[in-house]
């Protein structure tokens, strides 16, 4: 009895899980593996389209004779780079209609013309003509003839399914002079973005954890930057920072703080002269990092606030008795209580910021020194339209990601479940 029940339970579980697992497998896991396949191939964007045999049907009246019609099929191979093999053609005709001058490649059977055209090379074109006749010498209804569309099919090599592989993509990725710079930019962006968001999150959480008038209002608006759509927010920032008539630059000029407008998103370096030493600041990258911090500190805030509210109140009461001020309470009670959650948060946010695409793409498009790995995937795959290269960069991302995850689970995976 019990075995049959557990069998039913197992079966039910698999039935309930099947749709979700299939979908996730098809859309998430399959592409990750497909990346490996594509990255070893030389594929460009234009190669993806499968070549198709196409036919355009043109019906022409014969001047003297209404019982005869001339039909021209304009045949072509849709692809200019790939051949199609074994092209087959068929078209249907109404009753009592017969073709007169049938091509050798074709035959007429049960009101259908069937042709075997063989191989079409890339860019193939042909005008294929037939003349049809109504057997009883009646007029032919042209509309009826036009309504039938010809059917074509053929076989072609799908470049994605062939088995010629190359290491060229990976060679290009790793031996490129910019690869180390690409990694460094990604690292700067990820590290400082994460760190800044967490620091700002601590401040915000500490603030909201106090009692003051308008606290719930502040708590809701703190989440606005994350809840709002990236597209809208990124374009608003571009407008704010615009060098020509952006609000920030106009304000700074108006109050005489700067003389010339600064292109915060379009200038790679800003040279700062401090105590006689020149610093080179990655200006556009810094701006993008600030946007990143602004947009994602709400998540850190939520996480930290949840932890802060779980700290027992008597700890603070004891500190009050001992006469500790608010700063001491923060450094000696609050901070030690949240270090565990901060390390988890840092790892998780690090992984996510590492993958950020939209923010940089919308703000700078990867120009002026803000090219990170995810942006590079897009640039290689769609701007330069070299799909293989894009996939190779994706593979680099996945490998780094797996490394981060292993570190994460080794270091704090067990702790994460306790908290």
């Amino acid at each position, binding site marked *: 009895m019990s075995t049959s029940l557990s069998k039913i339970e197992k079966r*039910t579980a698999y039935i309930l899980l099947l749709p979700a697992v299939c979908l996730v497998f098809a859309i998430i896991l399959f*592409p*990750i593996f497909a990346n490996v396949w594509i990255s070893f191939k030389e594929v460009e964007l234009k190669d993806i389209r499968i070549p198709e045999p196409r036919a355009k049907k043109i019906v022409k009246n014969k001047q003297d004779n209404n019982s005869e019609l001339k039909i021209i099929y304009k045949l072509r191979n849709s692809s200019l780079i790939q051949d199609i093999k074994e092209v087959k053609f068929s078209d249907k005709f109404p009753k009592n209609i017969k073709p007169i001058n049938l091509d050798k490649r074709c035959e007429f059977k049960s009101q259908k013309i069937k042709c075997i055209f063989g191989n079409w090379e890339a860019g193939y074109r042909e005008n294929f003509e037939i003349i049809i006749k109504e057997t009883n010498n009646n007029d032919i209804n042209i509309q009826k003839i036009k309504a039938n569309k010809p059917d074509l099919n053929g076989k072609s090599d799908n470049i994605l399914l062939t088995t010629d592989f190359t290491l060229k993509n990976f060679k290009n990725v790793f031996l490129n002079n910019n690869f180390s710079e690409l990694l460094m930019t990604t690292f700067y962006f990820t590290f400082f973005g994460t760190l800044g968001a967490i620091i700002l999150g601590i401040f915000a959480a500490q603030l909201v954890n106090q009692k003051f008038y308008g606290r719930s209002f502040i708590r809701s608006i703190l989440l606005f930057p994350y*809840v*709002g759509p*990236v597209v809208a927010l990124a374009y608003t920032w571009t*407008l704010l920072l615009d060098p020509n008539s952006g*609000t920030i630059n*106009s304000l700074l000029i108006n109050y005489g703080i700067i003389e010339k407008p600064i292109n915060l998103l379009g200038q790679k370096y800003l040279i700062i002269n401090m105590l006689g030493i020149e610093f080179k600041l990655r200006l556009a990258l810094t701006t993008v990092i600030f946007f990143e911090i602004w947009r994602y500190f709400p998540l850190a805030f939520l996480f930290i606030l949840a932890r802060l509210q779980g700290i027992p109140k008597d700890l603070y009461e004891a500190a009050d008795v001992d006469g500790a001020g608010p700063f001491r309470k923060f450094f000696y009670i609050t901070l030690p209580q949240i270090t565990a959650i901060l390390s988890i948060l840092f790892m998780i946010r690090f992984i996510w910021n590492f993958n950020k695409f939209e923010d940089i793409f919308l703000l700078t498009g990867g120009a002026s020194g803000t090219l990170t790995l995810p942006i590079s995937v897009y640039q290689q795959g769609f701007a330069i339209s070299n799909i293989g290269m894009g996939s190779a960069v*994706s593979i680099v991302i996945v490998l780094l990601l797996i490394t981060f995850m292993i570190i994460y689970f080794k270091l704090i995976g067990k702790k994460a479940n306790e908290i």
Partner: protein
Amino acid sequence: MKFKSLIITLFASSIFLATIICIWKIMATLQGLNFTSLNFNLNLLLSLGLTLICIFIGNKFNHLLKILILSLLFTILYTFFTENSPLWFSFGIFLLTLFFTNKLKNYNFKYLIQDFTSEKIVFEFLSLFAIVFFALVILFPFYIMFVTSFKTQTALLINPLDLSIGISKNIFEIFKSYFVIFKTYDFGRYILTSSYVSIGTVLITLLFAIPAAYAVARLNFFGKTFLSTSILIIYMFPAIVLVIPLYTVFSQLGLRNSIGGLLIVYTATTLPVAIYMLQGYFRSIPKEIEEAGLIDGQDWFGIIIKIIIPLSLPAIASVSLYVFMIAWNEFLFSLMFLDNPKTFTLSRAINHLTGDAETPRQYLMAGSVIVTLPILLIFVYFEKYLVSGLTAGSVKG
């Protein structure tokens, strides 16, 4: 001790007042007022005086009368020193000082003598300052977005600092950008598409996630622990590594430029987190209720429909809102998969607008307001549910 607290109070409070007055001045500049210097030093000096008088008077005088007179005095002095300021600007200064002097209510000599007060005072003003800082930093871009959508391109080029909305103009003039983007740029269609896609994603995700989450939470089967850990790992993989294979496969299957294709991808990317959130909640439902249902002759399907779903409505609500938000805001896949304007979602449409450098910025901002407003309203209205969803899903973002 006494002097230390006094001096710290004086400086902390007057720096605070001077700063918020400067912020008010900057905001006034954005209304078209012609200020060219912030006069921070003057502000500081006046504020110092105000704080000093306030503390010296202490409780010897009626509080309400005291703050009214002092604020009025301060405002008159400040207006005297500032070039051409209109009445509403001075009134703002008056309200700010009123608020400030009211805050100083507790700070009399008696209070300043106590131990550890100086630290407390600094902390209090830092908190006040933090409130102003966060509110300003967060709301300022939203404010600019909103206000710019009511301006015209020429007005913005002539004076980029004048963001005032002319109330004297007729309504059609003010809302012109909105009329234009609905008429010329067809935003009505995009709103509909975005709504279909988001609501569709929510429904399909729930349809797939509820049974799966139930199985993970309650049933015993081979590979359960493996599955529940892999859910989170899968969730960590970003959209950008999926894009190229999905793009190639979708173009070959003809799923690009179709809402169906978009729905499949959105559902798959939100499923792991939905399952993760729901199974956590399902575990908290007492098992006895289900067992009672089993005895009554319900099968698994009946248990899910009649017991689990009604009991976990709050969790389902927060998952739905979270998924809705992700689908509504999603950009990368809509950029990749949609290039026919007839199938655009709102985010993709706004991105398309910027493709043309000639598009006036107020149209862009009007579009941004249209895509931002619904999600912010939903957030404010359902904050409780969305926040719990966000906290659970905040590993992602």
